[in-house]
Each structure stands twice: as structure tokens, then as C-alpha cells.
């Protein structure tokens, strides 16, 4: 299966077709996220994926600025 681009994933997330967990796990920083979860003794969830994205993804800032 072809890897989805950030824009495609963002669109799917916005349309409610995927959750935060899938958004991160299918993105470029999946390994960083999995490592962060492991270091904190957590299983990947939508809750911690959302926090991970907000704390690390500078594109979230750009979107926020545009709003």
C-alpha cells in the first residue's frame, strides 16, 4: 500500500475518517512517536497521539496561525 502524504493524512483526519493514532502512525514521525510511547510506558492511543502531534508538529502551528 502506498504511503500517504501529510496532506492526505490531514484531510482524512479532518474528515473524521482516521483518528490521531492512525494519523501519527502512518506519518513520517511514526518511529519517534512509538519511541516516545515506549519511553513513557504507554500504548499508542488517540489521546497520547494528539498530544504528541501538538507538541512536535510545527505544521500544526502553521495551521493555527492561518486560522
Amino acid at each position: 500500500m502506498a504511503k500517504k502524504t501529510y496532506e492526505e493524512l490531514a484531510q482524512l483526519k479532518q474528515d473524521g475518517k482516521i483518528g490521531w493514532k492512525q494519523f501519527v502512525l502512518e506519518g513520517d514521525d511514526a518511529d519517534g512517536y512509538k519511541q516516545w510511547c515506549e519511553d513513557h510506558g504507554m500504548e499508542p492511543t488517540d489521546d497520547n497521539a494528539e498530544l504528541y502531534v501538538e507538541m512536535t508538529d510545527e505544521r500544526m502551528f502553521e495551521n493555527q496561525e492561518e486560522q
Partner: protein
Amino acid sequence: MASKKKQEEVKQESAPQKQQEAATDKKTATKKKSEESVKDEKTETKKVEKAADKKEQQAEKTPREPQLVTVNGEKVTHAHAFQSNKSEDTWYFTAKLDGKQLRPMKMHADDVAAYQKKESSIEHLMKTYYPSKMEPKVGKEQYLADNKLSDGRVIDKMNVYKEKDETKQDAGKYKLYAVVGDQKMSTVLSFKDLNSFFDRVTTPAQLVEKNFGEKLHLASAYAKYQLPEGAKPENIRIAKDKQTDKWTISADLGPKGKTEKKPLSFDDGYSFFTAKTATREQLAGKYLASDIKSLMAPKQEKSVSMKV
């Protein structure tokens, strides 16, 4: 004999021919050499150009000299402030940590002014906007192992989540949820605690103890409160209010006056009467500090002046 002469002639003939050949060879050699040297020069020039290109490419690829190295050995580069696209009064600070872009943080006005005057340091800005990146990380093993509270109880569950219920006042805020025995608790996390959790510069026990210490009736939660200066333990009264049937705390400072009666929360009452982890003095510090301070302050005598 004739053949010998012929041979000699041949020999004689061959000498100039050889000389010519030699000359030609030399010429060719020189030409070759000069061609080669031109070629060499060209190659050399190309090599130099290539080397310069490579150097340039390397310079592009070579990581920048860090502006700062954190206690965790992470390198801070590209630290700078920039103006918002939306509002010219809004400025953000950002940097890269080990090559990874950090999320821009909105700056305080005084930091913007200092930055524009080149009076601020990267260390100060990093400590202000990314405090947890500048603190030493807790080891992974230590983080996972530190789930015991100071009274020996164990944290059964802890997680951080964003409040999704739009009807709640704290909707959209990150909260800490913890389960200790049969107690389930949640509270809004401060910016500092959220970042400390994210960057693993704290442990589950420290986070739970700090955020739910009073709910869990831990002695450590009350250690920060002290009896206000000037008051004595015998001045503090904890009694049940007859009208409301609730436990209250107040201070009688004799000639200085009395404070209002303040109702104790259930958890503070439990900590004082049952768990005995909070003292009368500490509760006075929590509930009556400002009241006692104003009673102890020298009263300004009303002076009446009359124009004569």
C-alpha cells in the same frame, strides 16, 4: 661490402630520421605533455572546482555550530524570534533541537523588546519557552519504576488527555488522570507540568503527588504551607460551625482582632482529623495567610487635619 654500405647508409639515413623521429616524438611528447598539462590543469581546475563544490555541499550538509548544548547533550540551533503573519504585535520564539524543529512559542512583550535590542540570550529564551528541554531527563527505567507515592501507595493508572466535553469549563485543555486505589482523579495540567511530562523530566509519582497531593491526603502536599508570621498555634481554631454544620478555621489574634471563619474542604478536614497529615499551622497558612497578614500589619491611624 655494398650491402654493408647500404646498411651504413641506412644507418646514416636512419640517424637523422631517428633524430627527426626523436624530434617529432619530443614534439609529440611536448605536445602531449602540454596537452596533458592543459588536461591536467583542466582536471586540476575541475578538481578544485569539484572540491569547492564538495566543500560548499559539505558546508550545507555540515550541521551548524550549536548556539547552546542542553544538559541532556541536545544541540540547540536556529534559535530565533519571528513576527506573526496575522498580527504584527505577536512574536514567536523557536529553535531546532538536534535538528528537529520545535513548535514556535508566543513571546512575552518584554522578551520581544529585549530580543530586538539584542539584549536577550538564547539560554534565557530557551529556559522561558522550552523549560523542560533545558532540564535533565529522567532515565527511562527510573521513569517507569517511580510510581510509588511518599506514603507507600501505588499509582494504578496515569495518563494525560485533552478534555473533549464541550459542556465542561476546561474543554480543550490537557488534563492529568490518575487512579490510586479506589480514588479516580483528574485535573487540568499546567503548561509546565504538561511539558515536564512530555519531555520526561518528571516521574509519574512526582506528577501525581504534585497535582493530587491534597486529594490523596499526603503530608508532602501540606509542607509548602506555613503559619503566617506573628500568629501562634494557639491562635488558630478549628471548630464546627453550628449554623452550617461545617468545619471551619479561624484565628483569634487578641487585641489585633479575629479573622473570618473559613470552611475547610473535605480533603483538608480528612487530612487534619483522620490522616493527620496536615497540621493546624499548615491549614492556617493555606486558609488564613492574607487575613492574618492584614490584621498583623500596623494600622494607619486616621489623622484629621484642620485648616486653621
